[in-house]
């Protein structure tokens, strides 16, 4: 039971970060129907910038919380700038083009960002300095650290903030209007280009924070971290229903939990020695041995399997694509 709860807690933590990254995908997709391949790299750049600042400031004697805040404070504007420039330079000129065109530029932008990061930060792994003293609490036999609590709280705050922005502010209304019908929104006096740029900037800002959270959860940041994180977040967005903001949140959390549980239990389920009639035929099973077909090293496969299953069984995602709500 405590393994189960432990995996759920770990999954929730990772999943809430996926959810915040997934928001970046889903917002952009909702508004211009583009899979912004480069979003994962934006997240990576956020983590790298923040880690560089944090490492530089760590010996200065400032309170740890202030160091982390300054680091994040530097990462967010940098990522927003990156997000804005890629929209302006690589996607806006192709707005009327066939759908394949911006998708291919997005792949290009992603390669460029990843290798620029490689040039700046080299292949080395940036480590998160040990400045925060993490305490561990126990709930019903499962451990939860202060870092995990902080990540959950921040992600929750970010998601509520975004929900407020999209559903309660003039900008959010403009975003939803643009998502529904760009031309009509333009006729109603909305500066469509500005709204789209704003969407990219907000998504990138969220991504920056997510990058810092993800990096501090695992303690490391590297120039390659963006692609796999981005892919998983995209899977989360599709799982929840791409273009749908509550869907991305739900999808992210669900994917995190599924992944953690899957990694925790797949070894048990695929241990052929558990199944009586097969076990008799395998030598390795004698004396309580194991014959595990697939272990937790397949963890990264789960997201893709979930993605393919969702696309086959329910392509519109869990929460569907309620057209009126896409933003």
């Amino acid at each position, binding site marked *: 039971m405590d393994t189960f709860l432990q995996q759920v807690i770990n999954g929730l933590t990772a999943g809430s970060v996926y959810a915040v990254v997934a928001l970046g995908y889903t917002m952009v997709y909702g508004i211009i129907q583009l899979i912004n391949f480069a979003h994962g790299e934006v997240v990576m750049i956020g983590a790298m910038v923040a880690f560089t600042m944090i490492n530089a400031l760590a010996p200065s004697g400032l309170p740890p919380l202030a160091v982390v805040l300054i680091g994040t404070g530097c990462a967010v504007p940098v990522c927003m700038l990156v997000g804005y420039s890629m929209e302006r330079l690589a996607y806006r000129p*192709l707005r009327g*083009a066939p*759908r394949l065109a911006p998708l291919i530029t997005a792949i290009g932008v992603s*390669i*460029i960002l990843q290798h620029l990061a490689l040039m700046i930060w080299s292949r080395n792994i940036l480590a998160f300095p040990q400045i925060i003293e993490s305490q561990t609490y126990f709930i019903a036999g499962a451990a939860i650290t202060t870092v995990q609590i902080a990540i959950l709280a921040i992600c929750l705050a970010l998601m509520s903030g975004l929900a407020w922005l999209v559903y309660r502010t003039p900008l959010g209304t403009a975003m939803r209007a643009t998502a529904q019908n760009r031309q009509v929104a333009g006729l109603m006096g909305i500066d469509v280009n500005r709204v789209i740029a704003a969407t990219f900037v907000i998504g990138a800002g969220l991504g920056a924070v997510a990058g810092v959270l993800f990096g501090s959860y695992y303690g490391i940041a590297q120039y390659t971290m963006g692609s796999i994180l981005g892919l998983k977040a995209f899977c989360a967005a599709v799982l929840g229903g791409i273009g749908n903001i509550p869907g991305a949140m739900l999808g992210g959390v669900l994917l995190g939990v599924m992944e953690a549980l899957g990694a925790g239990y797949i070894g048990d389920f695929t241990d052929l020695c558990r199944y009586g009639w097969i076990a008799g035929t395998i030598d390795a099973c004698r004396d309580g041995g194991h014959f595990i077909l697939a272990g937790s090293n397949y963890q990264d496969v789960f997201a893709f399997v979930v993605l393919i299953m969702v696309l*086959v069984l329910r*392509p519109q995602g869990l929460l569907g694509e309620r057209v009126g709500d896409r933003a």
Partner: protein
Amino acid sequence: MQSYLDTRRRPWLVWVGFALVGVSLALLPFALAQIGTTWVRITNYAILYVLLALGLNIVVGFAGLLDLGYIAFYAVGAYTYALLASPHFGLHLPFWIILPIGAAVAALFGVLLGAPTLKLRGDYLAIVTLGFGEIVRIVLNNLSRPVNITNGPQGITRIDPFAVDGFSFGTYERFLGIEFSGPIKYYYLLLLVALGIIVVNLRLQNSRIGRAWEAIREDEVAARSMGIDTRNLKLLAFAMGASFGGVAGGMFSAIQGFISPESFVLVESIMVVSMVVLGGMGNIWGVILGAVLLSFVPEILRWTVEPLQEALFGRMLVEPEVIRMLLFGFALVLVMLFRPAGLLPSAVRRRELAERAA
């Protein structure tokens, strides 16, 4: 000058052109061998990329399905060959048996990937294929336990070279007073396979199937209402593209003599996509041009960028590998922005773009 080269008035000029190209292709490896056998090897890999790019062109260029996990089929072909012709399982089947098996297995994987994804629109398809490519790589990496099938990250070594009745492609030989090194023999074999695949591609393009693919690419709903079986034709595109990848993979396996999952990473898929996009989606000659250009880029960079940086800064600031990837990235973006149909656009794409501009 123009009138001298007017092929409509002098149809035999076409054959002169063919002969010139043929003779220069035949002599190329010997010229390259003068500089160094490495260059023959590099050319061989370039031809492998041409094979891959032509295979992907069927999926992306003809049928308009963006496949970002294409290297998975290359991997399937390579591993099929490696497992059936290496000491790993103690099997040593001849290559003319394995290559068709590799092509068939890859085609099967193509259908397996295609079947659940055909309903999806282009951009979803891109992500699913990307995920598929990663799944194949992760599985290859981990399929060494509990039963050792792929030998995991260590890969499979001592793979047999191609051989026919004691004539091995891997060894040095003297024939008719001319020296043939292993790479040169492979060069001719690869060239032959490439020619075969080019012919198949050319014939496909203007066939009933090719025109159906084009129709699906342009407007799937319209194509279906014209009585085209879109599902089967898309599956066919996947299977054919995959089988070409499988053949290329098998040859890669034999030439290299060693394979590991490292050779089949996402970057390779993106590289093949870049070749197709840069050259001109749907145009066979464009795709070949793109593949040749991009596969020589790393070598050219190695010979120019490194000494240049040494001379300018006294040390290497940026690795050629990084510059190569940046070039790919910029090539993808700039081609899409300024020349969306590629360096050599296909006739149809050119027409579309002219319409869009008007």
